[in-house]
């Protein structure tokens, strides 16, 4: 075997394989300068292939900004993003559910492509950092072979759909939301109606209103499990929230519908997506999230628009077909449930049991959380964890939004032995869900937008807090800390008791890393309320600020008064006074340590900040879809080079249909995938009306499509393959020209 593509061809679902082939062809076109860099950037983002800090070819080394002279210096993978610069691969793990085999494959990939490290994100994804773009197609194929996709993991698309990691085992849930999250993932992935957003779109499911796990109120679309009596029958359904989000300007989601049934769930989601695609901001990406549209229209008008849209959502058997398989979504524990049997317990077990073990709704079973520092684990830990999972829980592995592993369906009698096994691989630290279990975004380590080192601060706070965790009062022990490297909230600082986000201040002639302190956010009740920024302090003062805050909270709180209430009672003015001593900035000469960030010996600078790719470029739907046609045409060329003329014909024909579809979709979004319908719509809308006509060739190029569509060739030889590939190229150019004439804009 010579390539992963060849080796895995029988294990990768055809559609997934096809999308990866198209992406690989797009890479080649970009390298040859035949694909617009913005279009390619959005295409690669929609494959989860993301830029990283310094990919503009510049880095400040603490003394001066140096140019990073990558070998393919003149080739870019997006605006100001050099081809050879290391990047990040985001991998979607729907509702955080993993099998042992998938974990092993992820670990293999980390071994080979990302220095042996994997990272769990706050949205239940896995990220691999320092990946070279040339490795990404094979990486995707190896994932696809075990049922994982990176499709639409970044870019202006529906991101990973998240859900409570306790779904299915929780005492308080209305029902298990996992199969619904799974069904929605399948339904929306690659759906025509989610391809033309101005920004990303995040969806979350939660099984209950009270706990935090699902965080539905901070999502573009949040689904909260409910049940209701309808005609004497108890029906499952959801309260639907829309327009939530953190970011620079956090918005609490609004209730779109008190209760929608299982049958209504997917069509309603589709209607929301269509309204967002049609009316959402496209030019100003800072106001392009759904939350801004909901705020602009008001929830009542938005609801009316969605209801109107629902009436014209095309019928789709998938809207309800998923319900037939809900019953098949059952968990297979590796062992029968058994109570703890009184055996001797290992040292450290009691603390771990207190913070990391959740007694499941199912008697005799527990769910355990693996406190995963900074969300990082090694490939070696991944392999060994897969072994542990097989031994104790089977495929019941989840990732949590607190960047931890969760193992479900542990027989209670196995808790001491699984603790020992996890301890041997460094994943049995106690304190999951407590003040030491700090959430952090990547910050300046790898993010182009990072202003301060969120991971450096998190590591420092974690080290200090672990030393004294057993001395902390429960009221402090149970607080949540979350850290972001900038104001964009990837570390979810708004929903922590104590949040920090990075910024910078000047002292003399130097810049000093700072963190803004955000107090009183609510993690419970699905991110029930957001905290308030109360002032910025130097990064190096944050541990002292934390100590001052928690000590005063313990000293002054009324019995059972929680942190949010205490902060509210204390008032912002008094908190400012408390922080005042920490805001005094030393000069560089007095204390140079204040001018370096945590975990970084360089003198601090913000010169490394780049342009974020969080949202991707706003690229028109036509540009995205015509690029697929061009990539497919390129595949036809490759097949011709290989002497595979039948495949060349197949790809050329498909490329023509895709090009026609791209144009049709500028007028008729719901054209679907049926070749007959596409060609018919293309003919009536663009050929019969002569809109597609070239000034000199008239309708000649369109007739290439009609000819091939009406009759497949009796015999395909090299001459024929050459001809149809040439005709396809001409037709694609014709479509490009027509689109410019008709719509006036191609990119952006």
């Amino acid at each position, binding site marked *: *075997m010579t390539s992963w593509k060849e080796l895995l061809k029988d294990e990768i679902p055809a559609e997934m394989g096809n999308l990866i082939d198209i992406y690989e062809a797009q890479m080649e076109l970009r390298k040859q300068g035949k694909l617009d860099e913005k279009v390619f950037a959005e295409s690669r983002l929609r494959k989860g292939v993301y830029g990283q800090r310094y990919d503009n070819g510049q*880095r400040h080394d603490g003394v001066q900004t140096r140019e990073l002279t990558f070998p393919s210096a003149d080739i870019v993978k997006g605006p100001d993003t050099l081809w050879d610069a290391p990047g990040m691969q985001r991998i979607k793990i729907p509702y955080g559910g993993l099998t042992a085999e998938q974990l092993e494959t992820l670990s*293999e990939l980390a071994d*080979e492509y990302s220095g*042996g490290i994997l990272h769990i994100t706050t949205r239940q994804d896995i990220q691999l950092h*320092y990946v070279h773009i040339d490795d990404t197609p094979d990486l995707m194929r190896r994932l696809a072979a075990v049922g994982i996709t990176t499709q639409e993991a970044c870019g202006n698309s529906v991101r990973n759909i998240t859900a409570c990691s306790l779904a299915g085992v929780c005492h308080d849930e209305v029902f298990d939301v996992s199969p619904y999250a799974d069904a929605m993932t399948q339904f929306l992935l690659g759906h025509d109606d989610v391809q033309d957003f101005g920004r990303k779109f995040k969806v979350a499911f939660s099984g209950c209103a009270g706990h935090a796990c699902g965080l539905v109120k901070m999502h573009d679309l949040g689904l909260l499990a409910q049940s209701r009596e309808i005609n004497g029958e108890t029906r499952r359904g959801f309260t639907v929230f829309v327009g939530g989000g953190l970011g620079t300007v956090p918005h609490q989601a609004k209730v779109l519908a008190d209760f929608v049934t299982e049958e209504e769930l997917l069509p309603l989601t589709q209607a929301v997506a269509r309204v967002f695609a049609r009316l959402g901001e496209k030019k100003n990406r800072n106001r392009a999230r759904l939350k801004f549209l909901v705020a602009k229209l008001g929830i009542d008008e938005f609801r009316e628009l969605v209801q109107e849209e629902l009436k014209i959502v095309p019928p789709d058997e998938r809207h309800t077909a998923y319900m037939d398989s809900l019953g098949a979504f059952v968990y297979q524990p590796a062992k029968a449930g058994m109570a703890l049997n009184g055996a001797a317990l290992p040292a450290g077990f009691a603390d771990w049991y207190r913070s990391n073990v959740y007694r499941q709704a199912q008697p005799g079973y527990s769910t355990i959380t693996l406190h995963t520092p900074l969300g990082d684990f090694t490939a*070696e830990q991944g392999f060994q964890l897969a072994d542990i999972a097989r031994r104790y829980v089977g495929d019941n592995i989840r990732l949590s939004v607190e960047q931890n592993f969760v193992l479900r369906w542990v027989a209670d009698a196995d808790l001491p032995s699984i603790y020992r096994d996890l301890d041997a691989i460094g994943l049995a630290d106690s304190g999951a869900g407590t003040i030491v279990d700090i959430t952090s975004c990547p910050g300046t380590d790898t993010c182009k937008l990072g202003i301060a080192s969120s991971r450096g601060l998190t590591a420092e706070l974690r080290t200090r807090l672990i030393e004294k965790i057993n001395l902390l009062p429960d009221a402090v022990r149970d607080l949540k800390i979350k850290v972001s490297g900038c104001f964009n909230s990837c570390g979810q600082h708004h929903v922590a008791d104590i949040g920090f986000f990075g910024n910078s201040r000047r002292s003399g002639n130097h810049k000093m890393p700072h963190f803004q302190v955000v107090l009183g956010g609510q993690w419970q009740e699905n991110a029930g309320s957001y905290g308030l920024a109360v002032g910025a302090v130097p990064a190096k003062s944050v541990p002292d600020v934390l100590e001052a805050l928690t000590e005063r909270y313990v000293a002054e709180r009324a019995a059972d008064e929680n942190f949010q209430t205490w902060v509210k009672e204390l008032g912002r003015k008094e908190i400012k006074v408390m922080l005042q001593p920490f805001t005094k900035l030393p000069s560089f000469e007095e204390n140079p340590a204040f001018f370096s960030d945590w975990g970084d010996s360089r003198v601090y600078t913000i010169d490394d900040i780049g342009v974020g790719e969080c949202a991707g470029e706003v690229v028109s739907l036509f540009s995205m879809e015509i690029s697929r046609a061009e990539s497919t045409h390129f595949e036809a060329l490759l097949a011709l080079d290989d002497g595979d003329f039948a495949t060349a014909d197949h790809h050329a024909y498909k490329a023509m249909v895709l090009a026609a579809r791209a144009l049709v979709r500028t007028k008729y979004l719901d054209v679907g995938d049926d070749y007959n319908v596409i060609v018919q719509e293309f003919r009536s809308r663009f050929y019969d009306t002569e809109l597609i006509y070239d000034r000199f060739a008239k309708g000649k190029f369109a007739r290439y499509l009609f000819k091939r569509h009406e009759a497949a060739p009796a015999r395909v030889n090299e001459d024929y393959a050459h001809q149809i590939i040439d005709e396809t190229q001409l037709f694609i150019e014709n479509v490009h020209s027509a689109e410019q004439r008709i719509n006036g804009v191609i990119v952006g």
Partner: protein
Amino acid sequence: MTKVPKRLGVKFNLKQTPQLQPADILPIFQRWIQEHTVPGMLIDVIDYKHVLEGPGVVLVADEADYAYDLGEGHPGLHYVRKRDLPDSLPAAIRLCFQHALQAARALEAEAPGDLVFDFASAKFSFLDRMRYRNRPSIFAAVQAEVADIVAGIYGAPVEVTRVNDDPRRLFALRARLRDGQINLDEIAGRLSCSPEIA
């Protein structure tokens, strides 16, 4: 001809746990970027010391990574070549050995007497499961060739063993000098005479 893996790593373990902490390596690697202490287009330093037996502290370059690696519970210097490997296995191994040796000696110089490497043994990791699945047949196919190549570097016979037999793990070999006496300057001299390195 034996295939060249897509990526190839060489690690030298420390002889004993040093006083120097992994956190102390961060400023050293950051200074190496400023001073171009080791070859390559040096990009950044990453801190993974919080994960158990992980890559520790990594100096990322375009063509290679230099890690103060904590893997397998043995701190050491791990050089991983990620691109531009020569197109023969002997040349690839010699190139990686040379860069790993150079970086390890530079690190020793940062804490003389405390950071002391065991240069009589080297671990070779083949980061390429397409060409090098961790199987007995692969080991049988390359053991003698790798032993010859490494013996050529040391100027003395070596014993080559497989690091682990789990087919999921990376294919990795450990080469150990049969006679523990080595002369690093001679080794460096032999490597610098290699046409692929010069």
